[in-house]
């Protein structure tokens, strides 16, 4: 299992998490290349279908990152995203997919270090869980 390199799709909100990931870049904070970012204007835009689609296509993990509570550029999109993720995890359990494959995080525009840490941790966690059983079924 040691050579397993997970593929992680990350939905990042434009105002906080994406800017935080950019800051990690300008600060040259090294983190694993396993994470593949997708920019959305708000984490509230992340339809659970996107997450399921990513898993169906074989992604080993999906990260959704938005603004901290109270800091959402659109007032409350981050709460909606968080609630959807909680519900989605219930559903994943019923589908026999480890809910830990989906993770929601608050990352602000100034938290480059946190973004790098979140990615590192999540990659380690997914390595522990192992490859997505749906991988290669397409």
């Amino acid at each position, binding site marked *: 299992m040691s050579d397993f390199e997970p593929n992680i799709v990350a939905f990042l909100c434009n105002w906080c998490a994406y800017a935080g990931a950019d800051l990690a870049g300008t600060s040259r904070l090294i983190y694993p*290349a396993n994470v593949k970012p997708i920019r959305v204007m708000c984490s509230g835009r992340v339809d659970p279908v996107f997450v399921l689609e990513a898993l169906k296509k074989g992604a080993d993990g999906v990260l959704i990152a938005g603004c901290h509570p109270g800091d959402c550029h659109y007032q409350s999109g981050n709460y909606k995203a968080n609630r959807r993720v909680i519900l989605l995890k219930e559903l994943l359990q019923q589908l026999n997919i480890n809910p830990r494959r989906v993770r929601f995080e608050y990352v602000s525009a100034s938290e480059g270090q946190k973004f790098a840490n979140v990615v590192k941790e999540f990659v380690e966690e997914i390595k522990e869980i192992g490859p997505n059983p749906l991988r290669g079924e397409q």
Partner: protein
Amino acid sequence: MDRIGVFVCHCGVNIAATVDVDEVVDFAGKLDGVVVSKSYKYMCSDNGANLIKESIKKFKLDGVVVASCSPQMHEHTFRRVVEEAGLNPFVLEIANIREQCSWVHPDRKEATEKAKLLVKGAVAKVRLLEPLVREKVKVTPKALVVGGGIAGIQASLDLSEKGFHVYLVEKEPSIGGRMAQLDKTFPTLDCASCILTPKMMDVKNHPNIELFAYSEVVSVDGSIGNYRVKVVRKPRYVDFDKCTGCGDCVNVCRMKGKVPDEFNMNLGKRGAVYIPFPQAIPLKATIDPEQCLFLRYGKCGRSPACQDVCEAEAIDFTQKEELVEFEVGVIVVATGYDLLDPSALYEYGYSRYKDVITTLELERLISSSGPTGGEIVCPSDQRKPGSVTFVLCVGSRDETVCTWCCRVGCMTALKQAYLLREHLGDDVEINICYTDIRSFGKRYEEFYRRIRGVKTNFFRGRPSEVKEKKDGLTIDVFDTMTNKLFEIKTDLVVLVPAVVPRNDSSDLGKILHVSRGADGFFLEAHPKLKPMDTFTDGIFIAGCCQGPKDIQDSVAQASGAASRAANILSKEELEAEPLIAFVDEDFCSGCATCVSVCSFNAIELMKKEDNKYVARVVEALCKGCGSCVAACPSGAMQQKGFKDDQILAVVDVLGGEA
């Protein structure tokens, strides 16, 4: 789109050093729908832009992918380039292969593979993109300035001079802010109020400035060009129009001399009715409802003395909070700073020992309008100090408290050392315990040299403890210049506390939707190139609410913020971002899920001819978050530029590759 051009930027070596650009170009050239794939050293340069433009024409491109730095940097640049070549600016997608790839993944193979994948995702999205039209919105040519310190004053004056109406909101009874509390300013030793009060008067007299003192912003809606603002005007219990500011009420108040005076850093006492300082603008009395006997108990002697003495009959105990609403096009936030409460550093004894004070407290003691009339005395026994010791970096540059430098502490201490020498003569001993003297500003170093010449003892080290002994205070400090431990006996200890965000900056940040950094100060959109902008379009920051600053930097930033704001106000119309939600009525069942999800009341239900309901997006109100799109059970609600199929196309690419 099936005639897509991919343009990969080397960014000098920023991208090319870790990403094999040629490999990415080759890979992109073979993707479905891509007809041309090129690289250039600096795609954002004129040559790079021309390369894109020429390719668009030569290959009749209908979509463009630029693989470069973050879209936050250059998306607007490339949108313009694409537009200049005759394409719709929204058939462009940026693949961020610098901030989120080459700069964070040092392994060349990994970084190249990821870059290829990001480009492939971007191409997949561009294939499904559609041309979008920017709607025009009218601009309200008015500004809101929050905070009436020197930064807010400067921004208000600049904007009003340019001919725009300014609402200046200050939460205290008077404008002036921290600068009004200072006696002299470094390095010129200008009298603070002498240079501040003319500006305060200008604010009062300028026909374009509407001042809301003793008021607070409670809500802000809308977006750039049109913000709807609600301000609460707190009751002064004094009729604003009738009060002449004569101060008769202040003199007769039964609480006179009993209430800690916040303007004097609680060193002096005021009454329940007060005027914070002689030059206050507006010069009106204010009754403190927490302290006023009549407002607290319904009784003040036989009748309230203030009411008896006021010839203008201005005292009005029935006043209520007043809610005022107005619209503005831009907002400048200039809410300033707090000083760290030094009690956080127990070892320095602040609040335990009366003769341990802060620089701002000493400033009030030095000021001739201060609680002692300019007599510098030890608070414990009112005697003149024979020795004064400054402790710099109290909480600043300290990983356990505030990591940052306060940027004014060294110069403040040097200035105060000079003033002490001036007021107390040669007899007073002055010690300064410092970490580094940071005299970085214009003429600061010269000022520092001048102070070194007036018999001041410098100890390079942070004191470990301030102790109170029978005959005064002692400070233990290890001087790292001489490698010796000193015990300084002194009468008055002056702490130079860290500069921290205002305690209500979190609440205000939420009202304005302005982000704050990890330090709690408001976050600028770019630390170098957009130091006055925030991530929220049309909202600017100036002065210490953005980070510690001296007066000259605050004023410069305030003028800069005003100028940035005026750029917007001087336009009659703005082009709105078109990335908003829309409804495909054929799929909409009228379930109204989207209506309940929208935070901006931007969706309404509309009755169709066949009596069925469908959702409709009010474009002027939609901010383009896409929450309603994610909530829509039928896929009828979509977001322009972020439609389900457009995002799913990227998901399929990024999710499908191992």
